[in-house]
């Protein structure tokens, strides 16, 4: 994970960026848990909200893969469509775990 | 050479000494008079000028501004090496024409 490159993109120092990435792991994981139960319960409104949140946070930090997946979930959910949402949750979880590991390695 | 006297808007003057505070007042008055008389293209020959101080520079720039406002131009020629460097550092060569000596 190229933290320095992502940091430069935002005009921040690497350490500051890692701090933000840690925050994202925290809030993103929490949003993801809520997203997962929303999907399981078929609560479309909630799916929109949570995926929007994850999309925003990941987008700001330049985590484009998570951003892309969350964006699709949000767009579909706005059309009352939860197809692929279950799979998306799995992918996002994997990416966040990878991120957390990369942060630990830098620490 | 005799030529028909026309009112020329060009003039060259040669102070022949350092352009500094002690002579600035008189020098300024002289330059002002020339502009008032309708001189548009004024050339100052710096032969014999070894030093220009901040007051002198002020007079030169003010003269340039006056000429500029009537569509005229200031040229300073025969400028010594040191004074040329000074003018360059202060970007004066971007405002009026500065010609090195020799």
């Amino acid at each position, binding site marked *: 994970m190229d933290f320095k490159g992502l940091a430069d*993109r*935002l*005009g*921040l120092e690497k350490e*500051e960026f890692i701090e*933000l990435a840690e*925050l*994202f792991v925290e*809030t*993103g994981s929490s949003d993801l848990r809520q997203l997962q139960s929303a999907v399981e319960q078929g609560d479309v409104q909630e799916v929109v*909200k949570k995926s*929007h*949140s994850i*999309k*925003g*946070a990941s*987008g*700001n*930090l*330049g985590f484009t893969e998570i*951003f892309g997946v969350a964006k699709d979930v949000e*767009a579909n959910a706005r059309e009352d469509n939860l197809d692929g949402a279950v799979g998306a949750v799995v992918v996002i979880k994997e990416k966040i775990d990878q991120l957390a590991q990369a942060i630990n390695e830098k620490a | 050479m005799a030529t028909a006297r026309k009112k020329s808007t060009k003039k060259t003057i040669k102070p022949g000494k*350092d352009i500094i*505070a002690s002579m600035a007042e008189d020098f*300024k008055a002289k330059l002002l008079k020339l502009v008032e008389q309708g001189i548009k293209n004024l050339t100052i020959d710096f032969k014999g000028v*070894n*030093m*220009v101080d*901040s*007051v002198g*520079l*002020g*007079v030169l*720039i*003010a003269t340039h*501004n006056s000429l500029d406002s009537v569509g005229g131009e200031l040229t300073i020629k025969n400028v010594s090496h*040191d*004074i040329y*460097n*000074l003018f*360059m*550092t*202060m*970007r004066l060569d*971007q*405002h009026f024409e500065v010609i090195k000596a020799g």
Partner: protein
Amino acid sequence: MNDKQNLTILLVDDEPVGVKVLEKTLQKEGYRTISADNGPLARRLASKKQPDLILLDIMMPGEDGFEVVKLLKKDPSTAYIPVIFLTGKDELASKMMGFDLEAVDYITKPFHGREVVARVRLHLKLSLATNSLIESQAARLRQIQDAQTSMLVTPEDLPDAGFGVYYMALLEAGGDFYDVLQISDDIYGYFVADVSGHDIATSYITSAVKALLKQNCIPIYQPAESMKMINNVLKEILPEDKYLTACYARLNRDKKCMTIVNGGHPPVVYLPKEGQTRLIEIKGDVLGIFSDVYFGVQDIRVTEGDRFYIYSDGLIEKPGQRKVWTEGLDDLLKACSGLREIPIRKSVERLKDMLLEDTIGLEDDIVVLGIEA
């Protein structure tokens, strides 16, 4: 002695990572930030803290951005604070109609640091210009009066500014002037100017310059812009043949960046902690006499311990010799190289001693300002 000119920005977004990104980006530029994650709290904060600008997310649960703005405009205490919407690109398309009135602009997410900073600056400038037109004349005069009774700032006044200064005026009405301003927690401005001539009119000018620095050297203006604005006012108030040379250095110790703007002033000496001493030669017009001006700028990455010396030409002109200051630069460089081991506050007087054997026969004021990153 010098107040911070802090502008405060209110960040409103229910998404915490985005808020933190904005906080960090804006704080680095010298702004203060406060934040809220919902509409009602945002409005309360806006009313209480009177921020200078609000960045407002549109998509929030409960009160969304549009509702927040409507209510802000209804409240006279918050109606005039400029608001910039934060919005995802998709929302933009579907919500365009809501835009025409309430917010001044919008920034799309994901944020790009530079765009955020540029938009914020622009709208703060516009807002300040409109709000302060009426007050500015009166304020300006008041500041000049205050400045006349205050002395030149000392290193003890601003211990975190990391500078040392030596100042000697030829006459009571010194033509040389310096100032150090705290622009934000990590950003300091260092200014040295030399007014042409040595008559009584000079002291009024240095007071005016001090006031102008305070007004114009604030985070929303780039250093070169600050100098331009100062030039424009000086052109109005100075006699037609008076000018000043000036050098303005802005050091951001957080970003580790030094920006130097030169207005016809002798070159700054750069003493990196490791490496060769060198001159920073930047071309620029003198101030207060030309209407169309250009000031050269240089940005330098610094590391802790790097030093800069800004001085007036009195330091390098040889009294009694009929020469211009451009010739004294080699001696200056040599002398500066010998200053490394000396603490910054002492080094300035030492430099003067090395270059000027005695101050009898002095023909000009002397300022030496040493800055340590």
